[in-house]
């Protein structure tokens, strides 16, 4: 029943879920995921990521909408019939079973005989680079090792979809990087369609083919990492993914691809209308990332006063107070001659390029 290798497609079709308590956790989510893709579900705490994952796995029956895996609508199938592998945030290894018994558990449930089960468990433990741990109990393993076992256990049933709920949240930074590479490698080898839940934007951008950004149960944007980072569709995406300066302003003139905005800080700049066209005279919020601002020597751009300069390794971040009293951050690559700006120095700032400033209709 479960496909051997190569992932199946996954369609989340207008899924809405309201908990019995009344909380609307997920609202009209549409995702169309191709077989073999790695997708990251990115969003702040409580935005409904886990809920969506549990709906796909079959632990929660959604209030509305459909889940389609391959060509099958799976809404009527219980979790044990969906062939969906899941790695829980706390790993949820069976504490009383040895590592190899844990990995072989799903095969036993499928009636695979003992010798093939053990052979397969050993093969998977080699795949996750733990071949010598087979007889240990889970609590004798480190967090990263438990994580690998959980992964091997989920892969053992040859799932058509692999779900990972904040898989690296409990690991320290170095181990996290190792495991991210590891998971990506395993995913490449097996080609299993994979959904990773995370609230770590770097993780989402580095691992995923496409990123789905959620906020308050709604899908804000679903696109490639560069789409999400460079061409955010909503103000939320722009501010949640990466850091940004928000500068209020008024639209002077606009067409579909560019808008001239008069910033309250005192300059006219060209920005990209993020979501459709903007009307003349409307108030907007312009987002410019710190690394997309530059100091200019001429009279273009807007004026400001340098507050503090923070050297952060490869970059230097300057805090600048603009004419309207708001603060912006400017990050500069640290090149040899980068002179430290004295606190209180008067400077002028402008975006590197028009396409790097995004304008959103101002919300009150």
């Amino acid at each position: 029943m479960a496909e051997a290798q190569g992932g199946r497609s996954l369609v989340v079709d207008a899924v809405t879920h309201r908990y019995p308590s009344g909380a609307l956790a997920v609202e009209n989510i549409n995702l169309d995921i191709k077989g073999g893709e790695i997708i990251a579900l990115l969003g702040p705490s409580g935005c409904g990521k886990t809920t969506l994952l549990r709906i796909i796995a079959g632990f929660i029956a959604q209030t509305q909408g459909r889940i389609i895996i391959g060509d099958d609508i799976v809404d009527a199938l219980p979790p044990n019939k969906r062939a969906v592998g899941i790695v829980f945030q706390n790993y949820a290894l069976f504490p009383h079973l040895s590592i190899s018994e844990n990995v072989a558990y799903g095969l036993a449930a499928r009636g695979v005989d003992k010798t093939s089960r053990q052979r397969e468990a050993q093969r998977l433990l080699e795949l996750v680079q733990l071949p010598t741990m087979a007889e240990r109990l889970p609590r004798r393993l480190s967090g990263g090792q438990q994580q690998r076992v959980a992964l091997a256990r989920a892969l053992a049933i040859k799932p058509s979809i692999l779900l990972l709920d904040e898989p690296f949240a409990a690991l320290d930074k170095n181990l996290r990087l190792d495991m991210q590479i590891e998971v990506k490698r395993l995913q490449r080898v097996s080609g299993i369609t994979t959904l990773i839940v995370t609230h770590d934007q770097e993780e989402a951008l580095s691992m995923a083919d496409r990123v789905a950004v959620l906020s308050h149960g709604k899908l804000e944007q679903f696109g490639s990492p560069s789409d999400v980072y460079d061409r955010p569709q909503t103000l939320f995406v722009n501010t949640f993914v990466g850091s940004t300066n928000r500068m209020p302003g008024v639209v002077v003139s606009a067409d579909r691809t560019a808008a001239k905005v008069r910033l309250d800080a005192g300059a006219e700049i060209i920005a990209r209308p993020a979501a459709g066209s903007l009307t003349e005279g409307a108030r907007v919020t312009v987002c410019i990332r710190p690394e997309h601002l530059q100091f200019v020597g001429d009279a273009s751009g807007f004026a400001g006063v340098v507050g503090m300069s923070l050297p952060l390794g490869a970059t230097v971040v300057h805090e600048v107070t603009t004419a309207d009293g708001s603060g912006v951050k400017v990050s500069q690559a640290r090149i040899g001659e980068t002179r430290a700006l004295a606190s209180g120095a008067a400077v002028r700032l402008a975006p590197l390029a028009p396409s790097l400033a995004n304008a959103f209709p101002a919300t009150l």
Partner: protein
Amino acid sequence: MGAAPASRDVTSYGMGLAAPLALFFLLFFVAPLLQLLWLSLHNDTAGLHWGLGQYLHFLTDPFSLGVLGSTLLLGAEVTAVCLLLGFPIAWLYQRVGPKLQTIIILIVLLPLLTSVVVRTFAWIVILGRQGIVNATLQSLGIIDTPLKLLYTQFGVVIALAQVQMPLMTLPLITALGRIDPNLDDASCSLGAGSWRTFFRIVLPLSLPGVIAGCTLTYAAAITAFITQSLIGGGQMLFMPMYLYQQASTLQNWPFAAAISIIFLLAVLAVVSVFTTLGRLSRGYGGA
């Protein structure tokens, strides 16, 4: 580590703190027990001739051995009933909302809030010839003549099971509550059905609670003097009543003492079987 040379192992406490309790035990537990042992090693009621006669008498007397056997069996039956009824209650407790949880806990604890005597008399009312059970069955036309429920092994087991139920259910609730609910989901997502999940995951992980519950229920059931004698009546004789008769009615103190010692050893044997099982399952628990 060794900051201060005179640093003391923090896990060792002054034993002096335990002295009052030790004294209490010595005075009111060890001393009477030794007296009992001393008494049981006499062949005559006056306590003049040393010997193992009382023990020989008990161990060669079919009647006495029968009483011991039926008492141990009674304990096993009550424990089994409590386990079979208590496990689903504990399981349910972990799966319902907080409101229902309060209700379940209340129902489970209710037997502890009323006196044993009152509860036992309630069972007499329920199980008697004109009791609720018989009256209901008769009015429904299921039976013609009243069933004999009181003064039977069945009656004693049912009444004791109700009385001892909290001792089984509470450890089970604790044990089941310590199992990570994600394990259920993990098992399910790996393709296991509910029965496999229960027998391979839930049951093994709740074993410490099962063993604690069984030990408590068993020990309480076989020594439950009041319920055993009131529901069992004259026909059913169990060790506590046998002991009482020998000591109080027949004034045969050495024989009563020997019965006590034998009963004590039998109970200790059963309890140590439970604890050994518990130690074997300790590997699970934690985590």
